[in-house]
Structures are given as structure tokens and as C-alpha cells.
């Protein structure tokens, strides 16, 4: 494939990215290959006897179709997540119906270890992590073989966040040297619902299952075999489950990166990969990408948002409020500014940046700042005029937008109030209520903190909360479309849903318009133009649908190239980088009339090398698509923590998160016989073997007596 990032596999934790997902895709293919060998062996062994080959395994095991594991991540000092043993962990099924039932698993049950099936309410309902069922299971892990969480169909009303209460505590700007009083969320605890469950280490596998046929089979198997009558102990055979999620990496990032490099063994194997992906950026004016470092007479206003989120489980990271509201608002703002920045160009350039991996200690933004400091980026820190970051901006009725800024910068008077004034001015024209939090409050967790860490740059972070997050499901699987009320009447077809205007989109459109107008004034544009800057509510609705509900829709299909189109799915894409890249190109760029060949060679004019040309598949016209070429200033830049380039795996300054590799993730259920029966079977087998050896020995030593018949010995003929 020719694109620099050639990964359209939507199976990553959304913070994890092309490289890693391509690895897991590879792993999947690899494991399929291995699995394929086994039936062939069965053919060899059983077909002589006329037995149907695959059915032996099928008769014993029921494989689970839809399994989502919790996987291992590592940083400079810790490993978090879950793992099974190499050959999978086996336990007797126990469906936990209430918390009192836990006793059976942890002490009174006669047949440990147990595979605990947890209704999601039991997974999410706790006020204190130490009192939670998950932690009790962790402490009693000698009797626990694994846990399966049945994903709910509705969000828990009391809120749930498995993330830290103080996200990115040690990688933001507030530290013991910047302002100790504000460090470690001393002033404001941003995510008080955050329990830190995602950052615990479990030494048994934890899987999530959707409520479907699989869970029906599990419940039925449990009811039939594992429930003894009247509280008595159930009789063998019992229903058991085996979960495979063995992780290759251990201890910490330094250890696993070192083991990646050791390759004098017979089969060198990678054990972990750094978390990383790409940031997406675009400018309102083409910036010369061939010369790096400081650009004379260039002043840029950065408009930032983040693309990633996570949850306890791999591959589940809806991030509707925590990420999608922000980047959708910024995309809509960029679209609103397209015409006016071309017609009446302001003196400063607006640089739209979408950061990846911010959940894991600001991977994307720290990389961009690092490149700006080391003259590897198109601009440097001196070129930055100010930063406007769009955070979580999903507005509820009668809620305000809050303009957060840094109290330290304000104290030092290095920040003028210009950006806040412009935002207030813009909000005045759109009718959005804006306010500022108390002057002593620090910035919420935001990419802008990484810029401040390098230099006191003026900047504002827009959020929908005053102090603590209003998001009750921060970095959890419940921060989804349902939470944002992106829901549709049940009788609509996908295309009708796509066209359906949404209530939340109205509020988000107003935010986008406010952001766009503030950016325009901030960039030096004239206030008289403001009325012509308007975000399009239909586009916002469609983006909400495309990013949160179903990525396979007519609009997304038009604006992406054909390779990517085949990866658009029926559900939310957990890999938004490329979609945002193509949407941004479509929303800010222009269609040029060139052939596919010229488009791919990226030259309409020889000198124009700062624009990016993309050949996208266009609208369907019957069976043919009317493909076209889009010219834009959209580029990708690496979002890989500088710690991995510097090989500082115990870095205090940069993210050191890595993800372990694995070979197979699967689960299956089957019936186990009692240990006594197992021992008896083995004993009889060994007995038969010994008896036959003994018999053979006797017969061969007495052969001349036993087989001395009247006829000539056979050897005589040779």
C-alpha cells in the first residue's frame, strides 16, 4: 500500500493506532493460520476411522463468538490490565447474581477455581474501589480463574468511570516546580467518579461479552449443570469456561522494549509496541512543509481537539463526550471558516490540530511540542500566537461554556485577555452562554498543558464544565451515543437516521460557530465578517451519526478513498484518525479537476508542494463512483511519544505507555468431568499400556515355544 499509514483496521483501542492495530490484524491472520492446521491433523488421525474430522472438537467445545478482552499495558514503572496463562485459564462457571453470592466464589464453593460471570451492574456499582466486587475478586484470585462481564444495554444511572480521578496527573503542566498548590489535582479533582479500575493489574483474564446468543448458552449451561438443588453442591459434570489472553510483555516498558531488541535467540519475537498513531493537522494557508523550524513573519493560532479515548476493555472506546464532541465541533468550525478564510484572509494562520493518544499522558501533543522545540515541525513555538482548545463541549439545555485558562500565566501577566475577550465577543453574536471559572482554578486536563509546559503561551480551553467534569462516564464504555442522546426512532433506515437532525447537534453547532468566529477574530480577521461564519447543523448531525453510530454511511463513503471505504463498518469506528483526516480535507479543501494519476503524484502545479492531494471515491452514480481529487492542507504527523525516539523508557517528561502483544484471544465453554473420573481414565489408560508392554515382552521372549509349529521356520526361506 502506498499511503504512509496503511491501516484501516478498526480494531484498536482508539488511542491505539495504525501500527498496533496492523499488528493485531497480523496476529489475527497468523492465529487463523495456526488454527487451520489443527483440523488437517484431525483429518489424518480420524478420517481413517471414518469419523467426521471437525466434529470431535465441536462436540466438546462451544466457542464464544464475540469476546473483548482486557489487555496489558505497560509504562515506565507498572504493568496494568489482565492476562491468562499461556494455555488459557479454566474455571467452573458461576453466574454472580448478587453481591452476597460472592461468598460462594471466594470461600464456600467446593470446586474452585471459578469463572465468574458478572452482570454489568455488579461491575459498575460501587462507591469505593476497595469495596468493589472486582477488587474482592482480585484479592481472592487463587479461587478465581477469570471474569466475564456481560455488557449492558443501558448506561448505569449512577455514573461510572474506571479512569483516574486526576487524569494525566504527572504529565500535565502543574507539577512541584510549576505551581505545587495546583499539582496532583489539589485544587480541583476533575473526575471524582474515577475509580482507577482501568489502572489496576489483574492476574486473571477479564472479558466482556455482549448480551446475545453466547450469553444465553452460558446461562443455560450454568442453569443445567452448575446449580445444585436446594443449595446442595452441584454434581459433576460441571459447566466450565476457558479464556485465552496470554500477554507477551511483563514488568514495565523498559523491560519489554529491551526484550524487543534482543534478537540473538532462534526466533526473535516482539513483545510490545509503543502506543502511537498520527495527529491530523491543517492550516488555513498552505505552510511550507519542506523547510522545518521557525518561519519568518508567520504567526499561527492553534485550534486543538483530541481524537482518542479508552475504556477498561480493548477495542471499546466510544469517547462520545470526552473526545467526539470536541473534534466534531472543531471540524464544523473549520468548515465554517473555509470560505471566509479564502475570501478575506486574516493576517494570522489558523492551524487546526487533532491530537491522538492524549489519554495516555498526552502522546500526540507532547510529540508536536517536542518537534516544534527541535525544529522538526513546520512551525516552531515562537510562531505560535495563541492556542484555543476545544474539550468536552456536549451541551445540555441551559448549560454554559466555560473558558478555562491558566492561573499561573494570568498571575505572571504574560497572557493577555485577548482570546477570552474574542470568545466572549463571538459568544455574544451566537447566543451561547459563556463564563469563566474562578481565577484560582487550574486548567483541566488538556493538550494545551503540554504547550504551557514548554513556554507560557496564551491559551484557552473550552469545556462544558466549571470545575469537575460533567461527563459521568469519562473514559468508560458508557460514554457513548446514548449518553449524548444521539438516538433515533426505531423505524428509520440507516440512511434516514443519517439525515435526521439531532437536538444535541444544534447546541454543538452553536459551539462550533462560536469557536469559528472567535478563531477568525483571534487570527486578525475583521469583525464585520462574523455574520457570514456559520457552522452547518446538518453536517454536525451527520458527523455525530458517522462517528458515534455507524461509520458506513453515504457521506463518509464519498470522502474517503476506496481502500478505506471497505473498512467502514456497521458500528462506530474506533479508529477515527483517518476518517478525521479525510473529513477535514473535504471540509476545508477544494475539488480540483485532475486525473487520478496527477492527483496521486500530488502536483497540479510543479511548485505547489505544500498542499495535499487525495483521490477519494465520490458519490455513487449507479454502480460507478464519480471519484474526484481533493486539494487541502491536511497532513498527518506522528503521534509517537518522544521517549521512544530518545530511548528514555523511564522518562518523567514523556509518555512511556506500551501495549503488550498477544497471540490468541478466545473463549470457549465445555463440560468438565470430576477429578476422580479424570484420574480413573488416566489410570486405566496407563494400565492398558503397561499390560500391553508386558504382554509383548512375554510373547517375544517365548516366541520360539509359542510359535513353534510343524512347518519350517520362515527364516529358512531367506
Amino acid at each position, binding site marked *: 500500500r502506498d499511503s504512509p499509514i496503511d491501516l484501516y483496521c478498526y480494531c484498536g483501542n482508539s488511542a491505539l493506532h495504525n501500527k498496533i492495530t496492523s499488528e493485531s490484524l497480523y496476529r489475527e491472520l497468523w492465529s487463523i493460520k495456526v488454527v487451520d492446521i489443527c483440523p488437517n491433523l484431525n483429518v489424518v488421525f480420524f478420517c481413517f476411522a471414518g469419523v467426521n474430522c471437525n466434529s470431535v472438537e465441536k462436540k466438546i467445545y462451544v466457542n464464544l463468538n464475540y469476546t473483548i478482552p482486557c489487555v496489558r499495558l505497560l509504562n515506565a514503572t507498572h504493568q496494568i490490565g489482565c492476562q491468562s496463562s499461556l494455555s488459557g485459564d479454566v474455571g467452573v462457571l458461576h453466574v454472580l447474581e448478587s453481591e452476597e453470592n460472592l461468598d460462594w466464589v471466594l470461600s464456600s464453593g467446593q470446586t474452585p477455581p471459578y469463572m465468574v460471570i458478572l452482570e454489568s451492574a455488579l461491575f459498575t456499582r460501587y462507591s469505593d474501589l476497595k469495596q468493589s466486587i472486582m477488587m474482592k475478586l482480585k484479592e481472592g484470585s487463587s479461587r478465581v480463574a477469570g471474569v466475564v462481564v456481560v455488557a449492558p444495554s443501558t448506561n448505569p444511572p449512577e455514573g461510572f468511570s474506571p479512569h483516574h480521578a486526576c487524569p494525566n496527573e504527572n504529565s500535565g503542566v502543574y507539577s512541584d516546580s510549576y505551581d505545587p498548590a495546583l499539582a496532583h489535582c489539589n485544587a480541583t479533582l476533575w473526575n471524582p467518579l474515577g475509580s482507577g479500575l482501568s489502572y489496576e493489574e489483574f492476574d486473571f483474564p477479564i472479558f466482556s461479552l455482549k448480551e446475545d446468543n453466547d450469553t444465553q448458552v452460558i446461562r443455560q449451561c450454568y442453569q443445567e449443570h452448575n446449580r445444585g438443588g436446594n443449595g446442595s453442591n452441584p454434581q459433576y459434570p460441571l459447566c466450565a469456561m476457558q479464556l485465552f489472553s496470554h*500477554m*507477551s510483555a511483563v*514488568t514495565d516498558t523498559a*523491560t519489554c522494549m*529491551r526484550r524487543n531488541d*534482543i534478537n*540473538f535467540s532462534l526466533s526473535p519475537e516482539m513483545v510490545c509496541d509503543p502506543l502511537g498513531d498520527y495527529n491530523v493537522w491543517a492550516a488555513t494557508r498552505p505552510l511550507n512543509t519542506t523547510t522545518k523550524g521557525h518561519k519568518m513573519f508567520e504567526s499561527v493560532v492553534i485550534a486543538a481537539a483530541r481524537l482518542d479515548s479508552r475504556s477498561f476493555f480493548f477495542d471499546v472506546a466510544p469517547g462520545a463526550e470526552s473526545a467526539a464532541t470536541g473534534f466534531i465541533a472543531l471540524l464544523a468550525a473549520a468548515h465554517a471558516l473555509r470560505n471566509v478564510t479564502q475570501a478575506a484572509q486574516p493576517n494570522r494562520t489558523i492551524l487546526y490540530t487533532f491530537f491522538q493518544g492524549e489519554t495516555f499522558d498526552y502522546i500526540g501533543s507532547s510529540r508536536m511540542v517536542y518537534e516544534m522545540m527541535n525544529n522538526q515541525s513546520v512551525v516552531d513555538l515562537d510562531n505560535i500566537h495563541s492556542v484555543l482548545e476545544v474539550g468536552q463541549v456536549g451541551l445540555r439545555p441551559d448549560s454554559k461554556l466555560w473558558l478555562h485558562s491558566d492561573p499561573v500565566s494570568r498571575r505572571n501577566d504574560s497572557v493577555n485577555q485577548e482570546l477570552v475577550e474574542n470568545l466572549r465577543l463571538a459568544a455574544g453574536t451566537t447566543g451561547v452562554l459563556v463564563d469563566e471559572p474562578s481565577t484560582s482554578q487550574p486548567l483541566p486536563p488538556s493538550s494545551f498543558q503540554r504547550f504551557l509546559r514548554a513556554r507560557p503561551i496564551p491559551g484557552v480551553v473550552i469545556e462544558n464544565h466549571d470545575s469537575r467534569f460533567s461527563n459521568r462516564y469519562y473514559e468508560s464504555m458508557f460514554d457513548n451515543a446514548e449518553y449524548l442522546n444521539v438516538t433515533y426512532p426505531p423505524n428509520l433506515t440507516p440512511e434516514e437516521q443519517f439525515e435526521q437532525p439531532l437536538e444535541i447537534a444544534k447546541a454543538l453547532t452553536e459551539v462550533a460557530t462560536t469557536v469559528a468566529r472567535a478563531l477568525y477574530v483571534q487570527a486578525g480577521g475583521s469583525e464585520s465578517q462574523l455574520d457570514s461564519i456559520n457552522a452547518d447543523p446538518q453536517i454536525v448531525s451527520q458527523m455525530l451519526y458517522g462517528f458515534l453510530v455507524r461509520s458506513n454511511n453515504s457521506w463518509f463513503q464519498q470522502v474517503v478513498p476506496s481502500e478505506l471505504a471497505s473498512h467502514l463498518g456497521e458500528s462506530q469506528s474506533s479508529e477515527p484518525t483517518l476518517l478525521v483526516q479525510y473529513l477535514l480535507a473535504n471540509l476545508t479543501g477544494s475539488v480540483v479537476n485532475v486525473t487520478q494519476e496527477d492527483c496521486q503524484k500530488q502536483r497540479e502545479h510543479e511548485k505547489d508542494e505544500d498542499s495535499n492531494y487525495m483521490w477519494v471515491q465520490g458519490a455513487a452514480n449507479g454502480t460507478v463512483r464519480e471519484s474526484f481529487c481533493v486539494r487541502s492542507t491536511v497532513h498527518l504527523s506522528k503521534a509517537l511519544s518522544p521517549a521512544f525516539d530518545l530511548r528514555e523508557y523511564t522518562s518523567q517528561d514523556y509518555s512511556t505507555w506500551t501495549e503488550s502483544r498477544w497471540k490468541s484471544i478466545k473463549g470457549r465453554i465445555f463440560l468438565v468431568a470430576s477429578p476422580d473420573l479424570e484420574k480413573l481414565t488416566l489410570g486405566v489408560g496407563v494400565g492398558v499400556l503397561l499390560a500391553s508392554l508386558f504382554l509383548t515382552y512375554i510373547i517375544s521372549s517365548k516366541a520360539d515355544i509359542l510359535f513353534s509349529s510343524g512347518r519350517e521356520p520362515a527364516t529358512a526361506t531367506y
Partner: protein
Amino acid sequence: MNLERLPNEEKLSLCRKYYLGGFAFLPFLWLVNVVWFFREAFMKPAYTEQLQIKTYVKRSALGLLLWVAVLTTWITIFQHFRAEWGEVGDYLSFTIPLGTP
């Protein structure tokens, strides 16, 4: 090769070759020597070369024991402390089992 069919002088020269070869850090030669010539050295009726063979077999056995002792100690220490040694432990390893510290 059947020792029974060899003349006594050749037995001695063979035994010496194995004994000397073992000094090239090849304790398995000593093991073979001990196993192979044990009968010759201690069970057979006396003959002239037997005394010399006895010495070689004894010394081979001693060397072998030394090797076994040294290797067992090292392997025990290594297996026990590999994870603790961290970097050094990894570089001393030929294969590192996946998913273990």
C-alpha cells in the same frame, strides 16, 4: 564399537583420548568415558593396562562431578535471580519465556 573385541592397548589409548578430550570443556566425553570404561576398570579381571584405565576413569568421574556441581549451582542461581537481575539477566538469556518477568 565393541570394547570386548579390542586389544587391551587400544582400550587404554581410547580411554586416554576421552580423558584428555574432556579437558576441552567437554564434560560429556568424561561422562561417556566413565560409563563406557566402568566395567573395564573395575569389574574385569586384572590386566596390565587396567591400572592406568582405572586412573583415567576415576579422574574423568571427578571432573564430571565438578562440572555437574558447578553447572547445577549456576543454573539454580540463574533461574532464581534472572528476573531480579533485570537487564543483565535478559542479556544472559538465550530465550526469554514470553509473559514472565
